[in-house]
């Protein structure tokens, strides 16, 4: 009997890269493995991606560029193998988006100058640098409506973005060997207000070469949202197409992952009514993810989304499975463990 099927897909698929699949030299929290001991069976979850993101941020801070390049090379190999650990590469975008906004512009520029001096041919550096300029552009602009942005700030915004675009353009040959180039290119082009056809062209090329790289999808999805002139019908078309493109290795997991991004940008109180998101499909996607890589993070996100969807049965079931490990609503409005527990019991 099995409740949620075991991650056989993941384990089998990683068999072709046994060394890489368990290589955790970059992870200070990894269990020490004695020489000759059998390699541990790791099922990579979001927690590992977060650990990798922290390792990347630390390597950037300590100017350990060789470590960054090696992590990138190994994570890219894992992604291309389609096996376990195939999502670790997205830790790079996570690290850039998390650390760049918090750092001083001059410090960041110095990091990239040093990186360039140390490894001038690095494609990773060019993609990361584009992310840096993208971040600096948005810091200059601020997050408000366009009408609230001063002309000076707008000028700086465009200038930084054009600098990012130029860098990407100049580094196409080495850069396009990494999906990070495409996610950066889409983010920069979208911020510059390029027409959908341009963004679609970049996305199609990137997704064709790197079909499992989630940040490429997230980047394109962003500019389909209503706040960027898109609409939820196009969002839904895009997400469904993304699932069809990736279901050979992901099942329908991208459905819930990409809709989670949509939810992050949604500020209303009727997500499943106002968007085209289907709770039934999202629930299915959560079950696919739990079958591939079970984790409390996924269970907590599952329970929180079930609660938002007002699915009492599922909320109660997943909360029961979580027990005292329930921790719902991290980063979400109006969702908490207590609120959802009350809802599951029949309240609210």
């Amino acid at each position, binding site marked *: 009997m099995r409740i949620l099927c075991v991650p056989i*897909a993941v384990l089998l698929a990683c068999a072709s890269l046994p060394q890489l699949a368990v290589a955790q030299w970059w992870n200070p929290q990894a269990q020490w493995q004695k020489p000759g001991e059998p390699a541990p069976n790791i099922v990579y979850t979001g927690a590992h991606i977060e650990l990798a993101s922290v390792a990347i941020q630390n390597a950037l801070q300590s100017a350990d560029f060789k470590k960054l390049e090696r992590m990138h090379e190994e994570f890219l190999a894992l992604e291309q193998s389609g096996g376990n650990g195939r999502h670790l590469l997205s830790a790079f975008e996570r690290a850039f988006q998390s650390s760049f906004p918090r750092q001083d512009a001059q410090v960041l520029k110095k990091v990239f100058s040093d990186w360039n001096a140390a490894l001038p041919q690095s494609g990773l550096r060019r993609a990361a640098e584009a992310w840096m300029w993208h971040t600096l552009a948005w810091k200059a602009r601020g997050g408000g409506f366009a009408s609230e942005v001063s002309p000076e700030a707008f000028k700086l915004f465009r200038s930084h973005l054009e600098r990012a675009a130029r860098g990407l353009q100049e580094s196409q040959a080495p850069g396009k060997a990494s999906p990070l180039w495409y996610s950066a290119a889409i983010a920069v082009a979208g911020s510059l207000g390029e027409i959908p056809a341009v963004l679609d062209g970049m996305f199609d090329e990137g997704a064709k070469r790197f079909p499992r790289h989630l940040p490429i999808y997230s980047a394109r999805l962003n500019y389909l949202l209503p706040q960027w002139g898109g609409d939820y019908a196009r969002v839904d078309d895009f997400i469904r197409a993304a699932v069809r493109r990736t279901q050979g290795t992901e099942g329908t997991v991208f459905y819930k992952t990409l809709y989670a991004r949509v939810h992050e940008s949604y500020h209303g109180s009727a997500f499943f009514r106002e968007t085209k998101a289907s709770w*039934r499909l999202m629930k299915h996607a959560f*079950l696919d993810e739990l079958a591939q890589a079970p984790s409390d993070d996924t269970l907590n996100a599952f329970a929180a989304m079930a609660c938002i969807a007002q699915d009492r049965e599922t909320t109660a079931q997943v909360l029961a499975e979580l027990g005292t490990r329930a921790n719902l609503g991290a980063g979400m409005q109006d969702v908490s463990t207590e609120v959802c527990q009350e809802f599951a019991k029949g309240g609210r």
Partner: protein
Amino acid sequence: MPPFRIVLAALAAISTCGYAADGAPLKLTIAIDGAPLEVDLREPGRPAQMSFQARAGQRLGLGIAGLQLAPASVSGVSFVVRQPDGSLLPRTKLLHCLPPIGASSQEDCDTGFTIERTGAHLIEIDPPFSASSRFTATLSTPATRVLSVDKAETIAITRVGQDARLSVDLAAGSDLSIEVRDVASKPEQPFAVRVYRPDGTKASESVAASSRGVSLPIAGPAGTYVVEVDPAKGALGTFVAVARAAAALTLTTAPREFSSSNPSEVLGFVLQAGAGQSFSVAIDAMKFTPAVESNVVLAVNNPDGTRLKGLGCSLPAKVPCKVGIRNLPAAGKYTVAISSPMGATVSGRLLVAEEVTGTINADAPVRVELKRPSQVARYTFPGTAGDVVSIALADVAAAPSASVVAKLERPEGFPMLTQMAMQGALKTNPVTLPVTGTYSILVDAGTGMLDSATLSITKIPKAP
């Protein structure tokens, strides 16, 4: 009877596949113990339902075989069971079946449940929206058998998802053990074995695999107990079950000769022990017939069937076949199980002995005796972080074959050092105590006894 096919829907145009998710469910009927139902969900994402009539108390197994998705996907198909009033069947978890991955994989998927209300039930099927799905569904009552003591029964699981339910009567004041062995399944899968009390509550659970059987206790109030045998992943196969009068042990039982009668047998002994007790269980004079290079597993299982402690013991033995149990969490009937080696029977002597305990202080030697084979003595002393001590064992009087060791344990129970007595004595190098707390010195003669020895601890003054 060959499976009959129901083509559920006409081919839908690919362009509309993704949007059929909100379509009305396709309705099917599945018969309990009927022919396997071949389900062909050609319209991606369209849910389906299988209805069936069942009566309260009925135990059923749902098996899903040969799941295929097109285009290839690692998404799954979900199944939930709803009662006549539409509510979810309690105590039944959602089943999410994945298609087999890789050419060699033949895994199926299954779940078992007990009906609570008589009437029409539904199994809701939720396929992925991105692919069409095909599989065979089978709904089965369990294979049943009434077990008589000492009569081995061979039971076959012939339907995907089917379990076996074996009933056995327990008379007041007596204990039984149930042995499940000779598991043969295709594809090879372990079988879960669960014992249910007369009131339906689960008493114990363990897992039997083709290479190793299990022995679980049947102990408690008189009545009819049910042993459920549940092959993993819907596997088909056979197994042998036999109920035996439990060989009872206590911590004062004399060494007991044992022998298995066939190479897959699991010998089970029911050991009554109390909360807080510490003891050792060991095998000596172990012999494999024929003399194969293999091992036995000596296990002490909790009353609920979970493993408390276990050890693989091989021949020729490099270390004593002995497990130490410290400070039992609860009183109850524990099982000592000895699995036979691969391709041979095993015989030997089973030794059980409660720990000898005492306290010791620096420069106040104590006399140690281990009067029962495999017995261990534990002497505790208060230690302060930074203290330097040395342990000595002198005047060791034991059989020449006995190897006597002294071990120092930290307050948390972790070993710090072990030293063997040579020529009737041992003395450890000075050791610095890392934390303040109660330390233990264990004196252990393996599976032998210790007529006498003098244990002492010396506190070494710190350098000024």
